[in-house]
């Protein structure tokens, strides 16, 4: 059943130990009114750990490392989110973490056979179109949220894994060239460019400009792998043209950006720390206040600032748990993204898929962390697996599942559907002859 039982056992124990020490830290060092709150949190975290260890045994995989890393980071995020401003179990975040783990399993099952998922590319394109229509109809004018009771969904998040799947390609697909005038054209590449342009324009329309770099990064990863392979099409001229196009698009984008975006781009946070620079200035003060080892779980003040659990979550964690812990948390996420380097995918399709996912995770993290630290303009993008937000969590979980699929692939050709013929057709033909 498990190929490496010792590796599995040790991974289980050390993930439990990492969560256990965090809980002990809260017990001795955290701020809580009632010990019951801490017991509930501990039971939920350790319970989810053990349940997932058991559930994983039912799935046949060659590698389990990403699952363990995912569980490690998700339960860490449950602990962080439950501790902001005092220990109180965050049930909403816990449910979204379970949803992310479930999405991970779905992501694995859907994409493990690259031959099959490649055949579904048309449905992926249709899916992106349908999501755009849903956003246009249900979110109201120029918004990105659908409110259902107390829940709100951000459908544009679900476009990320779909765009990753649209960008993934195989060498066989890249060899299907058509001669148009003097050029050898791969139609899929043209369609992909159109889809990405449509998605970026759509994000612009919905005023979700923070997500555009993530979509652009996914496309850039796909585009780069398409022009690099075969290398015959890869030249300095192509790179210079592509770079110039990006530069011109960025300059034009800044020129025609709405006023509130321009304010954020050129704000001096210290001279405007009660206005546009409020969140960033508070986030920086909190990081400095926390130092290397933090003030202690629940003892921060950043929970009073808007979006402390999503947009400036890195600063909230730095304040309460210390900068050292926050940096190591980002390293764990980078490890998830970099896992294909340890166990390289065996198919080009899965390789391009992993590159797209790594690009998405890395850009999202960079936008959030560097934005909180005032190194780049503040965008309000979430950190995958850490920030509060159901849509983001489910999407990140699904993409982690796609990484698992690349490491535990299935190489099977999908069965062709047999055409239905009448049972006695051959006999009839013979008798007619």
């Amino acid at each position: 059943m498990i190929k490496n039982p010792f590796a599995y056992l040790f991974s289980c124990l050390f993930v439990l130990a990492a969560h256990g020490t965090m809980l002990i830290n809260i017990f001795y060092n955290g701020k809580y009114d009632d010990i019951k709150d801490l017991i509930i949190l501990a039971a939920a975290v350790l319970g989810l750990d053990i349940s997932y260890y058991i559930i994983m045994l039912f799935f046949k995989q060659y590698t389990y490392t990403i699952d363990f890393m995912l569980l490690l980071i998700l339960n860490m995020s449950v602990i962080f989110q439950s501790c902001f401003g005092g220990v109180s179990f965050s049930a909403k975040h816990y449910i979204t973490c379970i949803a992310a783990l479930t999405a991970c399993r779905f992501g694995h099952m859907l994409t493990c056979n690259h031959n099959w998922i490649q055949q579904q590319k048309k449905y992926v394109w249709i899916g992106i179109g349908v999501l755009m229509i849903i956003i246009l109809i249900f979110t109201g004018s120029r918004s990105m949220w659908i409110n259902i009771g107390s829940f709100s969904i951000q459908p544009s998040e679900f476009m990320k894994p779909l765009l990753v799947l649209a960008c993934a390609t195989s060498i066989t697909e890249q060899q299907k060239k058509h001669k148009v005038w003097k050029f050898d054209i791969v139609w899929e590449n043209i369609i992909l460019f159109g889809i990405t342009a449509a998605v970026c324009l759509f994000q612009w329309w919905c005023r979700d400009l923070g997500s555009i770099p993530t979509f652009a990064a996914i496309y850039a990863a796909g585009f780069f792998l398409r022009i690099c392979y075969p290398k015959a099409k890869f030249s300095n001229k192509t790179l210079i043209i592509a770079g110039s196009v990006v530069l011109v698009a960025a300059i034009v984008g800044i020129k025609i950006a709405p006023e509130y975006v321009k304010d954020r781009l050129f704000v001096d946070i210290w001279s405007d720390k009660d206005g546009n620079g409020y969140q960033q200035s508070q986030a920086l003060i909190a990081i400095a206040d926390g130092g290397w080892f933090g003030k202690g779980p629940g003892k921060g003040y950043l929970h009073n600032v808007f979006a402390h659990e999503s947009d400036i979550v890195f600063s909230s964690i730095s304040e309460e748990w210390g900068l050292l812990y926050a940096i190591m948390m980002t390293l764990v996420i980078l490890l998830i993204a970099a896992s294909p380097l340890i166990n390289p995918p065996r198919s080009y399709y899965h390789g391009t898929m992993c590159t797209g996912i790594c690009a998405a995770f890395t850009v999202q993290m960079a936008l959030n962390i560097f934005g909180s630290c005032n190194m780049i303009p503040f965008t309000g993008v979430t950190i995958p697996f850490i920030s509060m937000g159901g849509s983001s969590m489910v999407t990140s979980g699904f993409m982690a599942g796609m990484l698992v699929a690349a490491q535990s692939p299935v190489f099977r050709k999908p069965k062709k559907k047999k055409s239905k013929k009448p049972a006695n057709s051959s006999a009839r033909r013979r008798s007619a002859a």
Partner: protein
Amino acid sequence: MEDMNLLFCAVSAAALDICALVLIIASYRERSTGNKQWKKISADMELVEQGFTYHLGCDEILIGRHASADIRLPDISVSRYHAMLTVADGVWTITDIGSKSGVYVNGNLVKSKKLCENDVITLGNRKLTLRKTVNPKKERRKNK
């Protein structure tokens, strides 16, 4: 109290660090399992040509004259992108991807063909043989 804070933070950070390290080591252990599984999937085959051995390490292998081809055959009779080897269900298939001189399997011109062990593939002037991977250590033991 300050010391306690520092101690517990350092311990939990160290635990996370060690956990990450263990997971990396576990991942390396699983790599060998992945390699074994790949041998099963690819039927543990390799391509051989006059003493040269080409390892078949992924499910799509591009053969051609160009430097970016996975198996590079620097011969003018071979097209830049000549043929593609793919594997599914443990069976390797060779497909002609628009070459000028064509692909021959055991002397027969083919567009796409499933390959068996010891099949001889002719691309231009070059002849390649598909065979089971030979482990040099095992060979030496057998010879002894």
